[in-house]
């Protein structure tokens, strides 16, 4: 029979009011950076939960606190029912962490890096070898097994590091930009491996990314982080609904935009300009009308390229304010 609080049992990770400040510089130049300024999150068991945001938003600081590497100034972190702030040493027995650095493994062969990590995750030597072989096969890393990590390409090295995160199965995987530099085949291998573990063992994944396309395809829910705060948290679809069904019109001019034309002049005021690229948000009907006008009139001669796209998480991020200029409607 289900307990009356069974709902709370669904949580894998619960973060409340997490605050972490850094001091940078010395003397008169010293200043405090609010890396995490009161973050609260709930990650459910078995979901792929994303942290999306620009560089320096505080994503990595947040996961370093989840993994027990960093002690928060205040707030609480609970992973699978264990208090990680009071007992950071328990984190390594609950989760596997893939950080951005591989210096500890760079001088090992792929095979030995995976096997050693398995041993250090508490597996016996026969178990560790079996786990190594299984994961190298699963990720199609066998041809690279005898190569040294540091001498592999960025994407291959990343995949080998991902392999070390998989051995010695943990119920929670915390992955900090796991697919950086990977080709599409390797990316697919990563997400298939994650999916298999989720289906078979209900593994939960917390993923740090700033790859918007990846976020849209693999995440169940996403928290948009900016300047140390969660500015939105929902499914990718739910977040995109915030943009009210607007579409995005991108215009790329060959050289200077022909501001003498009334149509272009009227767009100039509402477009977000980035070099020769103008971006305008509009409802679908208006956008269609604008495309027709731009492509049939004299402006077309000055146009290098244009595109009309449905909103992405990037638009959501920009709309929510972020650190960057929001897209003017």
């Amino acid at each position, binding site marked *: *029979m289900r*307990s*009356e*609080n069974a709902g*709370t*049992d669904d*949580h894998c990770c*619960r973060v409340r009011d997490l605050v972490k400040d850094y001091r940078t510089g010395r003397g008169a130049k010293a200043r405090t950076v609010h890396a995490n300024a009161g973050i609260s999150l709930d990650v459910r068991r078995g979901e792929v939960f994303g942290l999306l945001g620009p560089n320096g938003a505080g994503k990595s600081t947040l996961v*370093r606190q989840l*993994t*027990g*590497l*960093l*002690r928060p100034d205040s707030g609480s972190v*609970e992973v*699978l*029912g*264990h208090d990680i702030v009071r007992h*950071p*040493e*328990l*984190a*390594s*027995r*609950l*989760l*596997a*962490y893939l*950080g*951005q*650095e*591989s*210096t*500890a*493994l760079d*001088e*090992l*062969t792929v095979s*030995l*890096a995976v*096997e*050693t*990590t398995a*041993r*250090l*995750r*508490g597996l*016996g*030597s026969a178990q*560790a070898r079996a786990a190594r072989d299984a994961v190298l096969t699963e990720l199609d890393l066998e041809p690279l097994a005898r190569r*040294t990590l540091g001498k592999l390409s960025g994407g291959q090295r990343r995949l080998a590091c991902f392999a*070390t995160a998989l051995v*010695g199965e*943990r*119920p929670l995987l915390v992955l900090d930009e796991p697919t950086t530099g990977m080709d599409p085949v390797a990316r697919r291998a990563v997400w298939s491996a994650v999916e298999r573990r989720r289906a078979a063992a209900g593994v939960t994944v917390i993923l740090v990314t700033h790859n918007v396309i990846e976020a849209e395809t693999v995440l169940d829910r996403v928290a948009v982080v900016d300047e140390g705060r969660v500015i939105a948290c929902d499914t990718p679809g739910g977040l995109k609904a915030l943009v009210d069904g607007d579409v995005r019109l991108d215009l790329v001019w060959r050289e200077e935009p022909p501001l003498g034309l009334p149509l272009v002049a009227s767009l100039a005021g509402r477009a977000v300009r980035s070099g020769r690229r103008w971006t305008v948000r509009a409802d679908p009907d208006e956008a269609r009308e604008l495309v027709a006008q731009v492509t049939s009139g004299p402006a077309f001669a000055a146009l290098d390229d244009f595109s009309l796209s449905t909103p992405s998480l990037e638009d959501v991020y920009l709309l929510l304010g972020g650190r960057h200029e929001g897209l003017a409607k």
Partner: protein
Amino acid sequence: MTTATTAVRPTGLAPRAELLPALAAVYRAQLSRARVSRIPLLFVAVFQSLGIMVMMRGVVGTGPADTGAARDVVAGSSVLVVAFVALNLLAQYFGRLRASGGLDHYATLPVPAASVVLGTAAAYASFTVPGTLLTAVVGCVLFQLSWVHLWILLLVVPLSGAALSGVGAACGLLADRQEIATLLGQLGMSAALLLGVLPPGHMPEAVRWVRDLLPSTYGVDALARTFAGRPDWAAVTADLAVCAAVGVISLALSTWAYRRAATRS
């Protein structure tokens, strides 16, 4: 059945890695690095010691008057290989690991700090074995010393290796910046070179005190004593005991330094 708990039921924890199997795994992994990247530096360590002996051969003869000095030169050059690798290179390795965030890998595995530090230190001490042996043998030939008791290297290398790698690891892990770790490692090795290779008989009193403070000195003295026809085994044992004691203390210090570095970055 209902439960009154409001919190999430804690999920079972995976087991910790045991001290010795984890130590063995770290040792094996570190040793494999020698094949990949340490070889050039190991050569440097040996060539440096061989070069110093050849140079010193110019001022120290093989006659009875120079016997004491010859023993010090050969013993000092041999232990210098240990100082170069176990102190200098290990300080640089841990300094780099700490600065680049590489410690996170170990810190997020359920492995005892002692396994990581001792496994790595043991590997670095092992790297020094061939070079130390080669230097001692060449030195015996060059200065016509007895190599009957060279087996003592089987004790000198691990014990002075423990002492020096403990100091090296502590320097690398305690230094705030990677450059400081490199600097400390280089300074330690320079001290071992200057105070270990030069015969102490000619040193001023104050310098001899500094020499006594250096852990490598006791390895040098133990080895130098065994070149005698009838070694003073009590003194050799006492020297090696100092190495062992410094090893225990410095490795304990570096284990503490590792824990501090792994959780405070």
